[in-house]
């Protein structure tokens, strides 16, 4: 059991009851990083973030510094958008950051906007997160009043406006181009990449950075302690710390800030400071390593480090940092159906394979659960899945079969389509026998 001794960075104020207030934040060193950043040139700030090799925490894991570097030179205005539409089932790590430490996010946003030369920022908060909305609104008003946001910030001559925007309850808006559409007042439907890469053609067709709440929350620390100090944490490729939302059949589900790379899934499940072991001492059946979209992994993969590379090679993804643990009492068919139902429900309806295929998968799964399955339905499920995500679907190695690495391919506009396929494919790949029990017996041994 190797639990890291790296000190937490962004979750330090989670237990401080007044951290969401300006006073509480200032008392614990708040806005010092902003002062430091404003004394530097934007390029120097950008270099620090690049040096930190801070991977994006939204799901795709793209390094923030590199992302900022994609903005075309001399095209203004450029916008900065905070993606606070955390909706992936199992993922609940941005929410405490917004509820308990909103100023940390605002400070991170300020520094980031300064670095990239944005004069207008938007924080898009998921519609259902009422407390996060309230706390962010109060925090932002306080920051405006105290001169941290607005015109001539801290006398530096630099100005930034921040607009808060509440979502309306659509999972797909977590996808950055759909979020941009929604911000513009359109239906939350993703745009095609290419040509609509936000860095080139984003909000109002201007260059736009979209970063996750957690990513930005790390920025103040990176500025205070230097990019290299951050990069020194974790392993060479998986740097720093990261919040993981551990849920499912463990004794201590929760949000933990852990060191990347050196920590394994087994540590996360079993370490007393994290999951504390399986519920009732049951055996692990499968786990989802990176949010509901991620293909499932199984007990053999428990010793993988929390590192996007090896997890991707093993056929899944670290995604949004939501680890869902399923023990032996779980019905794989029912679990997969619950996930499919979610994705089918959340499909925006823009492109055909996701809109029609997702709902079709759900209907077949429902029919099998209802006891009306046919053996050919398994091939049908896989083939419908193949028409949404063509080619071999990612899965781990087994019995001489090589792993199919992440990412999945898609006939759809955005990854929501293949995400619908993930649970179907993963469950059939590993638990075909359980499907056959449902089909032959009309029910299930898991009760």
């Amino acid at each position, binding site marked *: 059991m190797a639990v890291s001794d790296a000190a937490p960075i962004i979750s330090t104020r989670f237990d401080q009851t007044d951290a969401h207030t300006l006073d509480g934040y200032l008392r614990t060193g708040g806005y010092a990083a902003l002062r430091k950043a404003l004394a530097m040139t934007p390029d120097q700030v950008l270099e620090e973030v690049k040096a930190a090799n801070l991977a994006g925490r939204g799901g795709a894991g793209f390094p923030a510094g590199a992302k900022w570097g994609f903005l075309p030179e001399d095209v203004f205005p450029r916008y900065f958008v905070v993606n606070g539409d955390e909706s992936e089932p199992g993922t609940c790590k941005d929410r405490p950051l917004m509820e308990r430490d909103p100023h940390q996010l605002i400070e991170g946003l300020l520094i980031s906007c300064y670095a990239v030369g944005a004069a207008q920022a938007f924080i898009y908060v998921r519609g259902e997160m009422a407390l996060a909305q309230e706390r962010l609104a109060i925090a932002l008003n306080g920051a405006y009043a105290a001169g941290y946001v607005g015109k001539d910030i801290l006398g530096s001559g630099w100005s930034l406006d921040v607009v808060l925007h509440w979502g309306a309850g*659509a999972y797909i808006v977590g996808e950055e181009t759909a979020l941009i559409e929604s911000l513009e007042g359109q239906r939350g439907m993703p745009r095609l990449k290419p040509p609509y890469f936000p860095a080139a053609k984003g909000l109002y067709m201007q260059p736009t950075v979209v970063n996750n709440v957690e990513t930005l929350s790390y920025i103040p620390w990176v500025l205070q302690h230097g990019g290299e100090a951050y990069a020194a944490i974790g392993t060479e490729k998986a740097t720093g710390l990261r919040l993981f939302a551990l849920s499912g059949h463990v004794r201590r589900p929760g949000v933990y800030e852990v060191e990347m790379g050196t920590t394994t899934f087994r540590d996360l499940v079993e370490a007393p400071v994290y999951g504390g072991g399986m519920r009732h001492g049951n055996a692990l059946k499968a786990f989802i390593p990176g949010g509901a979209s991620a293909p499932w992994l199984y007990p053999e993969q428990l010793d993988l480090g929390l590192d996007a590379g090896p997890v991707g090679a093993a056929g899944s993804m670290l995604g949004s940092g939501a680890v869902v643990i399923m023990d032996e009492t779980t019905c794989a068919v029912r679990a997969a159906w619950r996930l499919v139902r979610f994705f089918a429900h959340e499909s*925006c*309806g823009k492109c*055909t394979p996701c809109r029609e295929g997702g709902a079709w998968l759900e209907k077949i799964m429902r029919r099998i659960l209802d006891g009306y399955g046919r053996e050919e339905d398994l091939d049908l499920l896989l083939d419908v899945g193949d028409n949404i995500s*063509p080619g071999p679907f990612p899965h781990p190695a087994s019995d001489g079969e090589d792993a199919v690495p992440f990412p999945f391919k898609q006939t759809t506009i955005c990854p929501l389509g293949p995400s619908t396929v993930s649970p179907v494919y993963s469950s059939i790949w590993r638990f075909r026998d359980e499907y056959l029990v449902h089909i032959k017996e009309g029910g299930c041994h898991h009760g």
Partner: protein
Amino acid sequence: MAEADQKEKEEEKEKTTVTVTLDGQDIEAEPGELVIAAAERHGTYIPRFCYHPRMREVGMCRMCIVEIDSGRGPALQPACMAPVADGMKVDTESARTKKAQDGVLEFLLINHPLDCPVCDKGGECPLQDQTLAFGPGESRFVEEKRHFEKPIPISDLVYLDRERCVLCDRCTRFADEVAGDPLISFIDRGNHTQVNTFPDDPFASYFSGNTVQICPVGALLARPYRFRARPWDLDQVESTCTACSVGCRIAVQSSSNRLVRKLGVDVDPVNWGWLCDKGRFDFEAVGSDDRLGAPLVRAPGAEDLAEASWSQALAAAAEGITRARIRRGPESIAVLGGARGTNEDAYAWSKLARTLLGTDSVDAQMGDGLPAEAVVGLPRATIDAACAADTILLLGPDVKEELPVLYLRLREAVVERGATLVELSPVETGMTRYAEASLRYRPGEVTELVRALVDESAAVGDSERPGGLAPASAVREAAALLRRGSLVCLLGRPSLAEPAQPVVDAAGVLLDALPETTFLPVLRRGNVAGALDMGLAPGLLPGRIGLDQGRPWLAREWEALPGGRGLDAQGIITAAAEGRVGCLVLVGADPLADFPDRELARRALAGAGFVLAVDCFLTDSSRRADVVLPAAAFGEKSGTTTNIEGRVSRLHQKVTAPGTARADWMIAAELAFHLGGDLGFDSVDTIWDEIERLAPSHQGLTRARLASPEGFDGIVAGTVHDAETHGGPPSMAQTDSPGIQGALAHTKVDTLASSAMGTADKPDPSSGLAMQPPDPSGGGGGGTGTVAGRPAVLRWTPGPSAGGPPPLDRYSLRLVTSRRLYDDGTFVHHSPSLAPLAPGARLGVNPADLAPLGVGTGARVQVTSGRGRVVLEAVADPGVPQGSVALAWNQPGPGAADLIDVTLAVTEVRLETLSVPAPTSGRGSDA
């Protein structure tokens, strides 16, 4: 040297195209061209549902997904979103491509009702065609399909069947991007997504029928066509819409000798495939039971018209004409109308009037247009030139109401390409929201406003309001916009409640100050431009030449021409009312409906000695005629028509006319025989040959050219240019005009480059305006003299201005009246689907003018002018300036025509309330 040139040329060519490997073959594509379009140009049709070349691509349906290798290995990508790149490899036939496309097709079908046997689209449906060609024979989908109530009306003209819809976003994109009426949208989400209207807000767009045409399945259905025909029973011809004078190219389709559908055809210079709903659906009137199928004659002393044979009717007509001619002289004969037929019809009547009738009192306009000399003599712009101008000046009626497809083109120019629009109008119009500057003026005072805008010597004081309403600052800002670069003026009659003179004066002021300005006339009647080109106006002969100038030229082939200039419509009607017209011929003219002064028109019809009407229907006017000859309508005759640009394009007969009705030109020819003469032609073709030979503006516009691929877009008369070929056929989705693509495979003339007169050949600014005569010798032209006896085309020079604005009567309101798309016009009236859409005559009043009457919207008010009195419903309308009132022209029932006295400079009215004012708080208190 030659080699070096060759090499340089080759290098240049290499720079301008990119090479793409399409299914193993190298093809050349334009940079930025989409894979789907490049492939289609090279003969490979990639299936698609959402892609449409006239709208923004969305990549939604995924049907066009193909394997594309841009250097990083083949990947499935939608061909409609991928621009070509050098070295790109596209595989439209690979196993992966086929699997993905089949998968998408299966997805589209699982919830599709497959009710093809009862679906209008069956037989011309891309979804059906794709399925038949590539789809599986059996469905793997065993669950319950998605259900919706079907079909639901989303407007008065369009039904929506959501079960058939494949959510391609074409209709919704059209409504938003092209029409600017975003009244339909996706609602709900995911698998429950549907297209629908907003609650209580129907898809009341003038362009709704286009969504039916571009729908790739049978989800959108047009009420006038629904269940009327099966596509395989349809027969079609290429033609041109004559519902207004934009000249949209169309396919006309019939079944069992009845017109059942008009489809827009995509031509670059005009309609881009779009039609307005009036143009699309007014074919209903052609098949109306009310059509005249036999001649009618009023026996001497008889009350009623009675059916007669053609020989009887023609003899009666000839007798009436001859009696007038002998007893009262040829100048007592007058011909009104001719703007609703073909060019050949107009030419025949123009020739008949000038020769056998011996009169120059002919007018195709009904006192509701512009002086003919101005229309034919102003330097003319094309639609393309107008849309490409730096600034577009609107000085006319509401383009959205009168020439809807021109509105689409202008809107696109403003919204998509950043053209600047300056509008001068007495009330708000459909263009106002797109105008950079929209200035109001008091009716009758537009000349003063234009003078303040363009005459730099006329300094506008800060407190002045030129034209009565516009603040000086706004005038100065708009003035700067007019001098920004090229300027095209759309010129027409903003209101029929005042004479054309102020508008004409304004055009003169504009030309004096900005002589490079070109003009696009905004006149509505189907072939008004062609009728004027054919000389159906006093003082004008075919080919845009003046009567006196043209006399020696035409006298070679025409019999003696009238001695002096005749009367225009207002003159004719005034003379008739005064008993000075011995014979009045109405060629598709209904002065009781169309002439601005109904009382005068009524007296004219009563006062004319003998009235001959040639018409498709018995109208209020033709009902009062002594002889009525039944005419063939649109779709029942071939020929050519001319749009506002002067663009000549062809019409083709599709169905037979009812009874013994025949084309106007034939009636003219027959009448000539009965008058003892001969017009000298026996077919449309021989007429056109004569026009081409005699009309200076039409020289070189041969039948062969009109029938060639070049003529498919129409050819602008008055321009002699070499056919510059470019590009391939316009990209048009197979779905849009079934069967018409073949006709589109042609090369085209670049009219944008060569058509705008005064742009291609810059006139000498000192000469004001210059219409260059076509020069058959191929010389430099530029002169205004005659070439080989052929007279020069008329040039219009502004006459003396009519003087200052009319005195202001602060106790009266000035009337503004202009047309709505749907009115009580003959064709709308007889189209059952369109007639109910006429909004009715309601009086728009500024709320501040309505308030003192103590009433609001919905109140009945009595409107009194010096001419008459009508009772109308009032509507509070902030788009109408204080001091003016607005009334739609020619709506069913009493209206503006009962209030207008054409002899007055403005129509002033007073309002009295008939409703009891609603008691409101704060009113009636003495304190």
